């Protein structure tokens, strides 16, 4: 019984901490973030397993985690309001070349992050060439180039 209760608590505590650490962490996982997540996983695993390393206990913990994850994904998909809270919502951070700096600051992003995504995804050089930059719920930055820049992008890809 305690392994199921512990798993449920650990799942939601981990979810809350990771979710509340900001989407930024999810989209741009650095080597250090990766190590940090390994340590978090290790700490959670030790508290979950305690001194019981039996196969039954491991199976109970895994089954509970997978079940909660399925339940959360079902809630996300079927309850729109709750889904938005659980997953987050996309946010436009650049609109027609204009940086929405308040949003950028709150999302803990910088103009450099946006320009980096623009360069990486479309080979864009300046903010003016970006029609929309969207901070997605997954933590990634999507870039929609200005039509002129898009045409140029197509051209350069073609050659």
């Amino acid at each position: 019984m305690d392994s199921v209760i512990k798993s449920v608590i650990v799942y939601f505590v981990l979810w809350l901490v990771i979710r509340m650490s900001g989407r930024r962490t999810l989209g741009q996982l650095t080597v250090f973030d990766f190590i940090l997540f390994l340590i978090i996983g290790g700490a959670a695993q030790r508290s979950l397993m305690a001194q019981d390393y039996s196969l039954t206990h491991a199976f109970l913990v895994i089954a509970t985690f997978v079940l909660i994850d399925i339940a959360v994904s079902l809630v996300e998909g079927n309850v729109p309001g709750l889904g938005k809270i659980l997953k987050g919502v996309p946010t436009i951070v650049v609109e027609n070349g204009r940086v929405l700096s308040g949003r950028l600051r709150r999302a803990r992003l910088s103009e450099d992050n946006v320009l980096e995504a623009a360069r990486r995804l479309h080979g864009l050089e300046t903010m003016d060439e970006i029609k929309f930059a969207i901070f997605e719920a997954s933590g990634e930055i999507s870039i929609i180039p200005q039509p002129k820049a898009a045409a140029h992008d197509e051209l350069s890809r073609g050659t």
Partner: protein
Amino acid sequence: MREQDSRSYPVREDMRLQYALWAWERATWVALALIVLLALSGLFAHGPLSRRTVKDAALSLTYERFQRVTSVARLTATIAGPAADEVSLRLNPSFVDNFQVGDIEPRPSSSSAGPFGLELVFRAPTEGDLAVVIWATPRSFGLFDLTATADPAGQVAFSILVYP
């Protein structure tokens, strides 16, 4: 259009929710910082807030009032200048039920457990106070009301809160 307003193209935004989520995010950071500060102070065991000493007659007991399950903690009982050859320290049944004794220094000359709890008998030192260190690990979580009794004199009641 203001920055706070929700756009519907190219994605459907919900800026009211987004601002609420950002505010919630900040509140969680404050909560996490508070947890870390409280942990440093010893509220979650092993720190200044956790260490406590209780005294009665010849017996003085220093213990961790906040402990964590499966984490070993130290309990020091000092019995002032015993006159007799032997000194005994008795811990009530709740201690035996909920704590696993790992090590006792100095080694007792005899020990017994029964409905009265755990009784440890030590040879009295040739001079000075007898200091007994007990390393014990909580087996379960909860609030435990415990008592320690020294023979010839002294009885203290103390509580330990064990976190899961």
